[in-house]
Protein backbone atom coordinates (compact mmCIF):
# COMPACT_ATOMS: atom_id res chain seq x y z
CA UNK A 1 0.00 0.00 0.00
CA UNK A 2 1.46 3.34 -1.03
CA UNK A 3 1.66 6.36 1.21
CA UNK A 4 -1.04 8.28 -0.69
CA UNK A 5 -3.64 5.55 -0.36
CA UNK A 6 -2.81 5.22 3.32
CA UNK A 7 -3.35 8.95 3.77
CA UNK A 8 -6.62 8.82 1.83
CA UNK A 9 -7.80 5.90 3.93
CA UNK A 10 -7.00 7.79 7.10
CA UNK A 11 -9.09 10.74 5.89
CA UNK A 12 -12.07 8.87 7.29
CA UNK A 13 -12.12 9.76 11.01
CA UNK A 14 -13.91 6.55 11.94
CA UNK A 15 -11.24 4.47 10.24
CA UNK A 16 -8.58 6.59 11.96
CA UNK A 17 -10.20 5.94 15.34
CA UNK A 18 -10.25 2.20 14.78
CA UNK A 19 -6.60 2.32 13.73
CA UNK A 20 -5.55 4.27 16.82
CA UNK A 21 -7.51 1.90 19.03
CA UNK A 22 -5.45 -0.96 17.61
CA UNK A 23 -2.08 0.80 17.52
CA UNK A 24 -2.09 2.77 20.79
CA UNK A 25 -1.56 -0.13 23.25
CA UNK A 26 1.50 -1.31 21.29
CA UNK A 27 2.89 2.21 21.03
CA UNK A 28 2.39 2.78 24.74
CA UNK A 29 4.21 -0.45 25.57
CA UNK A 30 7.09 0.34 23.19
CA UNK A 31 7.43 3.85 24.64
CA UNK A 32 7.46 2.54 28.22
CA UNK A 33 10.10 -0.10 27.46
CA UNK A 34 12.37 2.28 25.56
CA UNK A 35 12.02 4.95 28.25
CA UNK A 36 12.95 2.40 30.89
CA UNK A 37 16.02 1.30 28.92
CA UNK A 38 17.01 4.90 28.23
CA UNK A 39 16.63 5.94 31.85
CA UNK A 40 18.65 2.94 33.03
CA UNK A 41 21.41 3.64 30.54
CA UNK A 42 21.56 7.34 31.42
CA UNK A 43 21.72 6.45 35.11
CA UNK A 44 24.64 4.09 34.36
CA UNK A 45 26.45 6.55 32.10
CA UNK A 46 29.82 7.73 33.45
CA UNK A 47 30.43 11.29 34.57
CA UNK A 48 31.88 13.72 32.07
CA UNK A 49 35.43 14.80 32.90
CA UNK A 50 34.42 18.46 32.56
CA UNK A 51 30.75 18.62 33.45
CA UNK A 52 30.65 15.88 36.09
CA UNK A 53 27.27 14.33 36.79
CA UNK A 54 25.37 17.28 35.26
CA UNK A 55 25.88 15.61 31.90
CA UNK A 56 22.89 13.45 32.93
CA UNK A 57 20.64 16.46 32.34
CA UNK A 58 21.66 16.28 28.69
CA UNK A 59 19.88 12.92 28.27
CA UNK A 60 16.52 14.60 28.86
CA UNK A 61 17.36 18.10 27.65
CA UNK A 62 18.42 17.18 24.13
CA UNK A 63 15.39 14.95 23.32
CA UNK A 64 13.03 17.68 24.52
CA UNK A 65 14.84 20.33 22.47
CA UNK A 66 14.74 18.07 19.41
CA UNK A 67 11.01 17.48 19.88
CA UNK A 68 10.37 21.21 20.36
CA UNK A 69 11.52 21.74 16.77
CA UNK A 70 10.19 18.45 15.38
CA UNK A 71 6.64 19.14 16.58
CA UNK A 72 6.61 22.49 14.77
CA UNK A 73 7.67 20.55 11.67
CA UNK A 74 4.79 18.11 12.17
CA UNK A 75 2.39 21.03 12.54
CA UNK A 76 3.78 22.61 9.34
CA UNK A 77 3.10 19.43 7.37
CA UNK A 78 -0.38 19.36 8.90
CA UNK A 79 -0.83 23.02 7.93
CA UNK A 80 0.00 22.16 4.32
CA UNK A 81 -2.53 19.36 4.64
CA UNK A 82 -5.14 21.87 5.75
CA UNK A 83 -4.45 24.56 3.16
CA UNK A 84 -3.40 22.56 0.11
CA UNK A 85 -4.88 19.08 0.28
CA UNK A 86 -7.79 19.92 2.61
CA UNK A 87 -7.16 16.66 4.43
CA UNK A 88 -9.88 16.35 7.09
CA UNK A 89 -7.52 15.04 9.73
CA UNK A 90 -4.87 17.71 9.18
CA UNK A 91 -6.71 20.28 11.36
CA UNK A 92 -7.06 17.69 14.08
CA UNK A 93 -3.38 16.76 13.90
CA UNK A 94 -2.26 20.40 14.02
CA UNK A 95 -4.50 21.28 16.96
CA UNK A 96 -3.55 18.21 18.98
CA UNK A 97 0.18 18.77 18.44
CA UNK A 98 0.33 22.39 19.69
CA UNK A 99 -0.01 21.86 23.48
CA UNK A 100 2.27 18.82 23.41
CA UNK A 101 4.90 20.76 21.48
CA UNK A 102 4.58 23.66 23.91
CA UNK A 103 5.10 21.26 26.84
CA UNK A 104 8.28 19.80 25.29
CA UNK A 105 9.58 23.30 24.52
CA UNK A 106 8.93 24.32 28.11
CA UNK A 107 10.85 21.27 29.35
CA UNK A 108 13.74 22.03 26.99
CA UNK A 109 13.89 25.56 28.42
CA UNK A 110 13.71 24.50 32.07
CA UNK A 111 16.20 21.64 31.80
CA UNK A 112 18.52 23.89 29.80
CA UNK A 113 18.30 26.49 32.51
CA UNK A 114 18.92 23.91 35.26
CA UNK A 115 21.90 22.65 33.29
CA UNK A 116 23.16 26.20 32.84
CA UNK A 117 23.12 27.06 36.53
CA UNK A 118 26.08 24.78 37.50
CA UNK A 119 27.85 25.33 34.16
CA UNK A 120 27.51 29.10 33.69
CA UNK A 121 26.61 30.15 37.22
CA UNK A 122 23.23 31.65 36.29
CA UNK A 123 19.83 30.16 35.55
CA UNK A 124 19.31 32.32 32.55
CA UNK A 125 21.92 33.35 30.06
CA UNK A 126 20.83 35.36 27.01
CA UNK A 127 22.69 32.92 24.88
CA UNK A 128 21.67 32.23 21.32
CA UNK A 129 20.13 28.79 21.69
CA UNK A 130 18.21 29.40 24.89
CA UNK A 131 16.87 32.63 23.41
CA UNK A 132 15.71 30.98 20.18
CA UNK A 133 13.95 28.25 22.14
CA UNK A 134 12.30 30.93 24.29
CA UNK A 135 10.99 32.63 21.14
CA UNK A 136 9.80 29.25 19.84
CA UNK A 137 7.94 28.79 23.14
CA UNK A 138 6.30 32.22 22.75
CA UNK A 139 5.20 31.24 19.24
CA UNK A 140 3.70 27.98 20.53
CA UNK A 141 1.76 29.96 23.13
CA UNK A 142 0.59 32.45 20.48
CA UNK A 143 -0.58 29.58 18.29
CA UNK A 144 -2.49 28.04 21.20
CA UNK A 145 -4.04 31.44 21.94
CA UNK A 146 -5.16 31.59 18.31
CA UNK A 147 -6.76 28.12 18.57
CA UNK A 148 -8.58 29.17 21.71
CA UNK A 149 -9.71 32.55 20.38
CA UNK A 150 -12.10 31.14 17.80
CA UNK A 151 -15.14 29.01 18.39
CA UNK A 152 -15.46 27.43 14.92
CA UNK A 153 -12.75 24.73 14.62
CA UNK A 154 -12.32 24.82 10.83
CA UNK A 155 -11.99 28.62 10.74
CA UNK A 156 -9.42 28.49 13.54
CA UNK A 157 -7.64 25.68 11.70
CA UNK A 158 -7.10 27.74 8.55
CA UNK A 159 -5.84 30.77 10.47
CA UNK A 160 -3.56 28.57 12.58
CA UNK A 161 -2.26 26.86 9.42
CA UNK A 162 -1.22 30.20 7.89
CA UNK A 163 0.48 31.22 11.13
CA UNK A 164 2.25 27.85 11.46
CA UNK A 165 3.69 28.10 7.96
CA UNK A 166 4.75 31.72 8.44
CA UNK A 167 6.38 30.60 11.68
CA UNK A 168 8.15 27.75 9.91
CA UNK A 169 9.56 30.21 7.37
CA UNK A 170 10.52 32.66 10.09
CA UNK A 171 12.08 30.29 12.59
CA UNK A 172 15.34 29.81 10.63
CA UNK A 173 15.58 33.60 10.21
CA UNK A 174 15.00 34.10 13.93
CA UNK A 175 17.56 31.42 14.72
CA UNK A 176 20.10 33.10 12.44
CA UNK A 177 19.43 36.57 13.88
CA UNK A 178 19.72 35.42 17.44
CA UNK A 179 22.93 33.54 16.61
CA UNK A 180 24.32 36.68 15.09
CA UNK A 181 23.11 38.68 18.08
CA UNK A 182 24.91 36.58 20.61
CA UNK A 183 27.10 33.53 20.36
CA UNK A 184 28.30 32.19 23.68
CA UNK A 185 27.05 28.64 23.58
CA UNK A 186 29.38 25.75 22.96
CA UNK A 187 29.37 24.65 19.30
CA UNK A 188 27.06 21.82 18.22
CA UNK A 189 28.57 18.49 19.11
CA UNK A 190 26.16 15.68 18.15
CA UNK A 191 25.46 16.23 14.48
CA UNK A 192 28.36 17.97 12.95
CA UNK A 193 30.69 17.54 10.03
CA UNK A 194 33.11 14.66 10.49
CA UNK A 195 30.88 12.61 12.76
CA UNK A 196 29.81 13.04 16.35
CA UNK A 197 32.42 14.12 18.86
CA UNK A 198 30.32 12.90 21.75
CA UNK A 199 31.76 9.85 23.45
CA UNK A 200 29.96 6.57 22.76
CA UNK A 201 29.19 6.19 26.47
CA UNK A 202 27.01 9.30 26.20
CA UNK A 203 25.85 8.95 22.61
CA UNK A 204 24.03 5.62 23.00
CA UNK A 205 21.86 6.60 26.00
CA UNK A 206 21.17 9.93 24.29
CA UNK A 207 19.98 8.26 21.09
CA UNK A 208 17.83 5.76 23.01
CA UNK A 209 16.26 8.61 24.98
CA UNK A 210 15.68 10.60 21.78
CA UNK A 211 13.88 7.66 20.16
CA UNK A 212 11.91 7.03 23.37
CA UNK A 213 10.76 10.65 23.60
CA UNK A 214 9.85 10.68 19.91
CA UNK A 215 7.71 7.57 20.48
CA UNK A 216 6.21 9.29 23.51
CA UNK A 217 5.26 12.20 21.30
CA UNK A 218 3.69 9.93 18.66
CA UNK A 219 1.68 8.12 21.34
CA UNK A 220 0.48 11.30 23.02
CA UNK A 221 -0.26 12.90 19.67
CA UNK A 222 -2.38 10.00 18.43
CA UNK A 223 -4.30 9.93 21.72
CA UNK A 224 -4.83 13.70 21.62
CA UNK A 225 -6.01 13.47 18.00
CA UNK A 226 -8.53 10.83 19.04
CA UNK A 227 -9.78 13.16 21.77
CA UNK A 228 -10.08 15.99 19.28
CA UNK A 229 -12.16 13.88 16.87
CA UNK A 230 -14.44 12.87 19.72
CA UNK A 231 -14.69 16.52 20.83
CA UNK A 232 -15.86 17.47 17.34
CA UNK A 233 -18.43 14.67 17.41
CA UNK A 234 -19.71 15.95 20.74
CA UNK A 235 -19.89 19.43 19.26
CA UNK A 236 -21.89 18.38 16.21
CA UNK A 237 -24.24 16.21 18.29
CA UNK A 238 -24.79 19.09 20.70
CA UNK A 239 -25.67 21.33 17.76
CA UNK A 240 -28.15 18.70 16.54
CA UNK A 241 -29.61 18.59 20.02
CA UNK A 242 -29.90 22.37 20.16
CA UNK A 243 -31.56 22.58 16.75
CA UNK A 244 -33.97 19.80 17.69
CA UNK A 245 -34.94 21.69 20.83
CA UNK A 246 -35.43 24.86 18.83
CA UNK A 247 -37.62 23.11 16.25
Amino acid at each position, binding site marked *: MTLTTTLTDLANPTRFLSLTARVLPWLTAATAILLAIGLYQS*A*MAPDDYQQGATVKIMFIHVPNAWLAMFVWGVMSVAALGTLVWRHPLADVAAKAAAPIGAAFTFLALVTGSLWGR*PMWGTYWEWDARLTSVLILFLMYLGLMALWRAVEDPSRAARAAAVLTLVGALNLPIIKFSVDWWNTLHQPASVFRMGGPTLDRAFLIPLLVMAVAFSLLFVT*LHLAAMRNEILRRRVRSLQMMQASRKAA
Partner: protein
Amino acid sequence: MSLGPYAPFIVTSYVLVTAVVLFLILWITFDYRRQMHRLHELEASGIVRRSGRSAADTR
Protein backbone atom coordinates in the same frame (compact mmCIF):
# COMPACT_ATOMS: atom_id res chain seq x y z
CA MET B 1 25.60 6.20 41.27
CA SER B 2 26.73 9.43 42.89
CA LEU B 3 25.48 12.66 41.47
CA GLY B 4 28.20 14.93 42.78
CA PRO B 5 27.74 18.45 44.11
CA TYR B 6 25.03 19.35 41.61
CA ALA B 7 22.58 16.58 42.58
CA PRO B 8 19.69 19.01 43.28
CA PHE B 9 19.80 20.36 39.72
CA ILE B 10 19.87 16.91 38.16
CA VAL B 11 17.09 15.56 40.37
CA THR B 12 14.95 18.68 39.84
CA SER B 13 15.20 18.44 36.09
CA TYR B 14 14.29 14.73 36.03
CA VAL B 15 11.40 15.34 38.45
CA LEU B 16 10.12 18.25 36.38
CA VAL B 17 10.21 16.27 33.15
CA THR B 18 8.38 13.40 34.84
CA ALA B 19 5.80 15.78 36.27
CA VAL B 20 5.07 17.51 32.97
CA VAL B 21 4.92 14.24 31.01
CA LEU B 22 2.61 12.73 33.64
CA PHE B 23 0.45 15.85 33.48
CA LEU B 24 0.17 15.47 29.69
CA ILE B 25 -0.74 11.78 30.02
CA LEU B 26 -3.34 12.43 32.71
CA TRP B 27 -4.80 15.40 30.85
CA ILE B 28 -5.20 13.36 27.66
CA THR B 29 -6.69 10.39 29.54
CA PHE B 30 -9.21 12.52 31.41
CA ASP B 31 -10.08 14.40 28.25
CA TYR B 32 -10.80 11.05 26.56
CA ARG B 33 -13.03 9.94 29.44
CA ARG B 34 -14.87 13.28 29.43
CA GLN B 35 -15.58 13.19 25.69
CA MET B 36 -16.74 9.56 25.89
CA HIS B 37 -18.96 10.40 28.85
CA ARG B 38 -20.55 13.29 26.94
CA LEU B 39 -21.10 11.11 23.87
CA HIS B 40 -22.83 8.46 25.96
CA GLU B 41 -24.99 11.13 27.60
CA LEU B 42 -25.98 12.59 24.25
CA GLU B 43 -26.79 9.14 22.91
CA ALA B 44 -28.86 8.35 25.96
CA SER B 45 -30.89 11.49 25.34
CA GLY B 46 -31.74 10.19 21.87
CA ILE B 47 -29.35 12.15 19.66
CA VAL B 48 -27.90 9.90 16.97
CA ARG B 49 -25.38 10.56 14.22
CA ARG B 50 -26.60 10.90 10.67
CA SER B 51 -24.92 7.62 9.83
CA GLY B 52 -26.96 6.00 12.58
CA ARG B 53 -23.85 4.46 14.11
CA SER B 54 -22.99 4.81 17.73
CA ALA B 55 -20.90 7.94 18.28
CA ALA B 56 -18.94 6.38 21.10
CA ASP B 57 -18.01 3.39 18.95
CA THR B 58 -14.36 3.79 18.06
CA ARG B 59 -13.79 0.43 16.44
